[in-house]
């Protein structure tokens, strides 16, 4: 069988049961919450009598048994129906589809920038382990990686938006600016500089550390020693052999980071008031909107699975051993 197909099949074989477990566990968790969507809704409109509550519960299907509702949810899911958001009075899938692109733009650009920057700096640091350059880069990256993104975001906005007034403090674009086309894109880019910058600084530190650690290991490999003995030029050895070998764990890291980034979007979008996926999660929590929260968790799990599948395929392209046989995992 084709290698890529085999990889996809293997990933799906484990991911689909895992996704099913995610759905069931999340469903049970949100069920244990005291009060339901109707309580939250009635509270928001100033209350209502028992009759109103009962009819609303019937309309939402909340009067049925737990298993019946889980089954109802699963069958609706099969039709790509994620339910009805009680806080926004809109279908959950529409809300997520509306917010997700902002988060993907934010996380995508931060990942691309930090990956490029981090791997380059990692090569510089790992070129000569324990050299002055390495110690400096390692120390800086260690400190950067300890900084919480929301604190860095606050500081950057204090410096560049409040003090220097170079950049906007929050939002994804200037409200009612009437900008279109390229001008609108540039406006969005200006708004994204600070959040992307904060995330890039932190993720660069991570990628730098992973790349450097991989390089330190690669220098010890037999074939690198052999290539040195053979008299290969330093640059060629460094880039073609050592760095190439260290790049694989870096790509694995991308897959592992996908989940952390989606989680991290909550705080960074809260700081910069970006109407994205993470902020939606926070709004779902404040609005006690169980269907929305459920949909958000489910969609994020599907996204993480997809990213990991892509990482599998990229790695297979780099390393012919991956997915070459049926047996290995």
């Amino acid at each position, binding site marked *: 069988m084709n290698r890529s197909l085999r990889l996809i099949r293997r990933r799906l074989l*484990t*991911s689909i049961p*895992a996704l099913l477990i995610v759905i069931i566990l999340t469903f049970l968790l949100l069920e244990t919450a005291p009060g339901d969507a109707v309580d939250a809704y009635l509270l928001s409109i100033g209350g209502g009598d028992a009759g109103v509550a009962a009819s609303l519960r019937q309309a939402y299907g909340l009067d049925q048994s737990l298993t019946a509702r889980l089954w109802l949810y699963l069958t609706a899911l099969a039709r790509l129906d994620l339910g009805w958001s009680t806080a926004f009075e809109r279908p959950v899938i529409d809300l997520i589809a509306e917010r997700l692109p902002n988060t993907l733009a934010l996380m995508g650009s931060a990942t691309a920038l930090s990956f490029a920057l981090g791997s380059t700096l990692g090569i510089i640091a790992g070129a000569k382990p324990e050299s002055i350059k390495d110690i400096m880069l390692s120390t800086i990256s260690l400190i950067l990686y300890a900084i919480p993104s*929301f*604190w860095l975001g606050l500081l950057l906005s204090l410096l560049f938006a409040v003090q220097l007034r170079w950049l906007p403090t929050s939002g994804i674009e200037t409200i009612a600016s009437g900008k279109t086309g390229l001008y609108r894109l540039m406006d969005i880019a200006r708004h994204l500089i600070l959040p992307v910058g904060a995330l890039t600084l932190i993720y660069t530190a991570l990628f730098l550390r992973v790349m450097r650690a991989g390089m330190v290991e690669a220098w010890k490999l037999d074939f*690198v020693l052999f290539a040195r003995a053979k008299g290969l030029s330093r640059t060629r050895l460094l880039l073609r052999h050592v760095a190439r070998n260290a790049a694989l764990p870096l790509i694995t890291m991308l897959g592992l980071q996908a*989940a952390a980034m989606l989680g991290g979007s909550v705080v960074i979008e809260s700081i910069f008031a970006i109407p994205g996926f993470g902020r939606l999660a*926070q709004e779902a929590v404040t609005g006690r909107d169980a269907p929305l929260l459920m949909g958000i968790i489910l969609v994020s799990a599907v996204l993480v*699975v997809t990213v*990991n599948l892509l990482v599998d395929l990229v790695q297979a392209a780099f390393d012919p051993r991956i997915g070459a046989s049926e047996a290995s995992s």
Partner: protein
Amino acid sequence: MNLIHKLMKTPEGAVGFIILAIMIGIAIMASTISPGDPLRIAGRALVAPFTDPALPLGTDRLGRDVAAGIVHGARTSLLVGAAAALAAIVLGLLVGLVAGFCSGIVDEVLMRVVDAFQIVPGFLLALAFVSVMGASLPVVVLAITLGAWADPARLTRAQVLSLRERDYVAAAKVIGMHPAEIAVRQILPQALPPVLAISATLVAAAILTEAALSFLGLGDPNSVTWGSMIAEGRNVLRSSPWLSILPGLALIITVVGVYLLSEGLAKALAGDGPAMQGKLRNGAAP
């Protein structure tokens, strides 16, 4: 003792050890250093830091002592970090041990559960868990644990799988040792080191997650946390930025201390190998 001696010989380990020792000291002595409720009003509102000797780090917009908040915040931060990491390691060891040792359908089912916890962003899970259960210290610890136990579980299982085929395990079977006893007394101690190696990272991640949760207002409302202090300071960020900056610095110093200690430990443990290794490594680096 020997390990601590080796640890102190690495620069990372020594600095990390000192930072954490100070932080833990502050956390333990919090009530002695600044007695009374840190959330009480201690003076005028928005006193700037380093202006009043009685309030060395100033006050926030309700007149609460910032220094007291930072001192008591250390307690919450370290307590939650250590408790969540410990719970994640214990749960991970247990699940990994059972999955690796039983294999077959048990392994298959447990690993799909581990997968499920790895594909859901830990922070979203924590957010959902706290919002359902209500914010309190034990709930926050449990919420962070939920997102953290899958990695140690996977690591333990891999380790158990490689250990269970060893001769000494076969020998234990031959002498009629109970499988549970083999798992706990023969395999578990050997499976422990790689899991302990990531424990520092787990503590650091737990501290940062707790800070983020309380920053969003989902921490325990009855205890001071650095995250909630940063959030509180955010309201007056323009006029009194120190209110957000100071607790953030405390947070960063603590997490750096944990990272340094973990690097020092890794170096100290690696140093146990033959001296040859180090020579080869230096020789290989041009």
